[in-house]
């Protein structure tokens, strides 16, 4: 059933078209490179933020830990996405972002109790929440494009998983970047808005990013066609 002639033709074709390539840096280095871009964006946006209220909010433990959880989730998810983009690496890396994700969402959920625990809290208005949503989406877009482009340079064998992990990294990074601009304290509706944004970013990355990462279709009928040839 084997067709050595067609394999030999393909080997010759591939050897002829061989060009030198530089081995990609390790997943850790690529994750660091992407996160450096996130930090650069944060530095660019920092002058626009309200430093006094940021300092005040970071003094509250649950808001501080939620921000820390978002940052760790973003780093872990980015690292897992780069790991999953290299053939032969363990798929267990995909579980890496779960602990910080639990911390991030769990601590953010404590904000739901804020109205009872601290009645004087500054609660969100509808217009402000819309602004949060737009900010999350606006920041996620360039970060997603950068991450998908970087992931595409490797060879993700499970593109949807890789892209979904990338989406989580982007959504968490966007949520962390939102902290200096957050005009109010966390509430249940605020958390819901963030979660919706996270799900949209992860879902879009998983659906669209997976297809983009997968790249050109493979030459499926090659062997069959060559067998059919006389």
């Amino acid at each position, binding site marked *: 059933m084997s067709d050595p002639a067609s394999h030999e033709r393909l080997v010759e074709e591939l050897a002829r078209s061989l060009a030198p390539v530089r081995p990609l840096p390790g997943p850790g280095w690529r994750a660091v490179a992407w996160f450096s871009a996130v930090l650069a964006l944060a530095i660019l946006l920092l002058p626009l933020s309200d430093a006094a209220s940021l300092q005040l909010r970071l003094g509250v433990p649950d808001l501080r830990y939620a921000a820390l959880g978002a940052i760790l989730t973003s780093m872990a998810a980015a690292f897992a996405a780069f790991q999953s983009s290299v053939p032969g690496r363990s798929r267990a890396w995909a579980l890496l972002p779960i602990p910080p994700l639990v911390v991030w969402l769990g601590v953010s959920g404590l904000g739901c109790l804020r109205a009872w625990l601290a009645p004087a809290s500054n609660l969100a208005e509808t217009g402000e929440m819309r602004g949060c949503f737009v900010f999350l989406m606006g920041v996620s877009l360039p970060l997603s494009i950068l991450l998908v482009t970087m992931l595409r340079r490797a060879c993700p064998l499970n593109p949807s998983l890789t892209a979904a992990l990338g989406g989580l990294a982007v959504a968490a990074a966007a949520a962390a970047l939102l902290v200096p601009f957050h005009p109010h304290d966390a509430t249940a509706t605020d958390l819901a808005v963030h979660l919706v944004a996270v799900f949209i970013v992860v879902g879009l990355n998983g659906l669209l990013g997976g297809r983009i990462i997968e790249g050109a279709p493979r030459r499926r009928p090659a*062997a069959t066609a060559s067998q059919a040839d006389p």
Partner: protein
Amino acid sequence: MSLAQAAYSSRFPVLPARSEAPGSIASMPARSTPSSGEASLATAMQAAQNGDAVAYRQLLRDCVPVISAMARAKGVQGPSLDDVVQDTLLTIHRARASYDPSRPFLPWLRAIAHRRAIDAMRYDSRRPREVHDPIAYETRADDGPPPGHDLEIRARCRAVTEAVAHLPPGQREAIEHIALRELSLEEASVLTGRTKTALKVNFHRALKALRAALSSSKEGSDV
């Protein structure tokens, strides 16, 4: 035996198929140790990353039987095996920058081959295939003639032939030339020496007689 084959067969001694021909991977003892095979493969891939086409060609050739064995171990069979081999070779080519020379080559190759094998099996499972369903086969309506159709036609021909044979000679002559041989009245007139009017009269009388004979025979057979 190539280095890749040696490395693979020593790491996975059971995997090469029992149907391998003499002289193939399975029939040869593994002489190289896994570590030496791995190291050589890693070196060859590193050379390929630097643009060494000779090393790359040899590496891909060595990979073909290894990929084939890996795909067979995954359950790929038939023509799909060649598709998996070629898809894997193409993926190796596209993803060669993602290989880390400090790591072993075979796990990298195996991950790609396994993924392409799964892709092939999914692709095959989506294609329509022959199924074993004897009841559907038995109950399917046949587009052809019903059973006994030929017998019925043969019986009808025999009845017509007999009825024509019992006609008077003039009428039989008219039927044979005009109806069965489909000659024109002029041609039939020349052949028989009868006038066209006589032929017409005989033809119509013959049709009437045949109709009567065949309808009576049909009624008789129905009863």
